[in-house]
């Protein structure tokens, strides 16, 4: 069963990479200037004597070698115990679940829209090289690739929220209202600008890549043959080009989750949107080590899943690879 073997090799590899990510985050946090005992004591730091600190260290295992601490932490992770977030005063797992629900709409919508838009633009640009349409689209792609995400978000905020007043200035709902009271329309209204900014910024790689593939196809014998039979450029683009270019576009879209999460962090910061990205920044600014570590692992899992999906879809869609088994 080659499929099962392949799958298990992939899974093992993913587990290994995740273990390495865990090691990396643990190492980084261990080397950081944050003293876990101070963080645990909080405002009572002045009242604790040296002996009490030693007791705490022994109680929490800070006197053990780093490798033992790492093993202990991994064991806790495996049993689902992620720790306590002092910024949100909640268990870390709850913070992540709640915040991710907020980010999911933003991340998912922007991901889907940018993939579709990027692919469509790439195909359009690749149909005729150096046409005015091609120039406009690739110019757009080059410029957005060089644009700071948070700057564009800020410009959008200035134009649409402050000057024109079309969209709300911040947050995921009207201030003062509870999460459950907000209607779907209001929620979409609050999402519109963040999603639009994120989409505009993340189309560029897919567009440029699809365009390159289309140009390659338009110069290939397949296209020449079709032209000789009387097909127009648009027909060739639709029948052969879209198929030829969709595989790399799918791979790229699945592999772009990491980059997209970076964008989400910035955009949520600008729009004060209560999601995972903002929680990450808060955790880093206010030294919430357990939350930061858990988010790092969680996003690494997300990105790895994206990569694995890309690989799996490739095999499923491409008939040449399927035949090989």
């Amino acid at each position, binding site marked *: 069963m080659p499929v099962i073997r392949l799958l298990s090799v992939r899974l093992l590899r993913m587990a290994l*990479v995740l273990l390495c990510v865990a090691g990396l985050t643990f190492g980084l946090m261990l080397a950081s200037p944050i003293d876990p005992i101070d963080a645990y004591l909080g405002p009572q730091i002045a009242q604790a004597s040296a002996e009490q600190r030693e007791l705490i260290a022994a109680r929490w295992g800070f006197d053990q070698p780093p490798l033992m601490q790492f093993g202990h932490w991994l064991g806790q992770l495996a049993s689902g115990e992620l720790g306590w977030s002092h910024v949100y005063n909640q268990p870390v797992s709850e913070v992540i679940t709640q915040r991710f629900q907020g980010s999911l709409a933003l991340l998912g919508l922007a991901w889907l829209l940018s993939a579709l838009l990027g692919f469509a633009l790439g195909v359009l640009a690749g149909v005729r090289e150096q046409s005015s349409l091609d120039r406009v689209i690739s110019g757009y792609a080059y410029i957005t*690739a060089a644009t700071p995400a*948070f*700057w564009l978000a800020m410009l959008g905020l200035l134009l649409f929220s402050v000057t024109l007043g079309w969209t709300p*200035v911040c947050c995921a709902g009207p201030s003062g209202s509870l999460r459950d009271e907000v209607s779907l329309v209001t929620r979409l209204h609050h999402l519109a600008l963040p999603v639009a900014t994120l989409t505009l910024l993340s189309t560029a790689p897919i567009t440029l890549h699809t365009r390159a593939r289309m140009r390659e196809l338009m110069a290939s014998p397949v296209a020449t043959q079709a032209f000789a039979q009387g097909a127009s450029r648009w027909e060739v683009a639709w029948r052969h080009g879209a198929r030829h270019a969709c595989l790399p576009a799918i791979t790229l879209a699945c592999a772009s989750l990491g*980059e997209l999460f970076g964008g989400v962090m910035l955009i949520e910061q600008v729009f004060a949107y209560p999601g995972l990205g903002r929680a990450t920044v808060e955790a*880093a600014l206010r030294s919430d080590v357990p939350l*930061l570590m858990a988010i*790092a692992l969680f*996003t690494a899992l997300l990105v790895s899943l994206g990569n694995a999906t890309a690989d799996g879809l490739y095999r499923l869609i491409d008939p040449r690879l399927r035949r090989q088994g």
Partner: protein
Amino acid sequence: MSQPRLSAVLGTALAALLLAGVMIVAAGLGDAPRQMHFDARLTPPSTDFWFGTDALGRDMAARTLAGLTLSFWVGSLAALFGTLIALGMALTAMLGPRWDALVSLAIDTLLSVPHLLLLLMIAFTLGGGTHAVIIAVALSHWPRLARVLRAELLHLRQAPYVQISQALGKSRGFIVRYHWMPQVLPQCLVGALLLFPHAVLHEAALSFLGVGLSAEQPAIGVLLGESMRHVSGGDWWLGVFPGAGLLLMVLCIQRLGETLRRAWSTS
């Protein structure tokens, strides 16, 4: 566009001139970015202050220029170190299959953490500041380039002319000097130039989030972060100009990198 060569040369020259111009003007600014004009706080762009002034009456044009220079140096140092790490890692991967597996694992690990999050964690560990940003950007940006260089070296090792050279009894040093270097060095340089825009943008993002350069430095990320506080007041000039400057600088460098890549590409 009937003269692609000429337009490429002109575009590249213009980009280089623009970059050099920013550096030279910023070097002549002296103390202007920190000078406060208390009688002209938050003034919109005018003939006195081309880009307006901020809440402390500081000239935004001077601050933007100083910020661009700072971003340029931080970005170049980070791109340089990143390229060196990538080259080192690619060479390490050549030592044997075990080393290769180790390098691949490191690349996969770093690529599976979102870039900005990795930057955030490294900067957090190092406690922020200029050196922390440079180290963080260098440490998080090498994997892609290392992957390219590793593939190139693997390809090169199997190339017929290198194997013939080996069979003729040339030493390892000779092969590295005369066969590897001419292939890999241009790749490194182009890689560094293409890395630069990412480095600059991520540096600005990190400073914007408040974990990067310290707040008193006139960095683009810091300026944009400050301007966020005045967005709802409609003081648009605080954010628009520094961001546009950064965009222009990144476009210029992209242009230079693209020209070099075309000039040196072997295929």
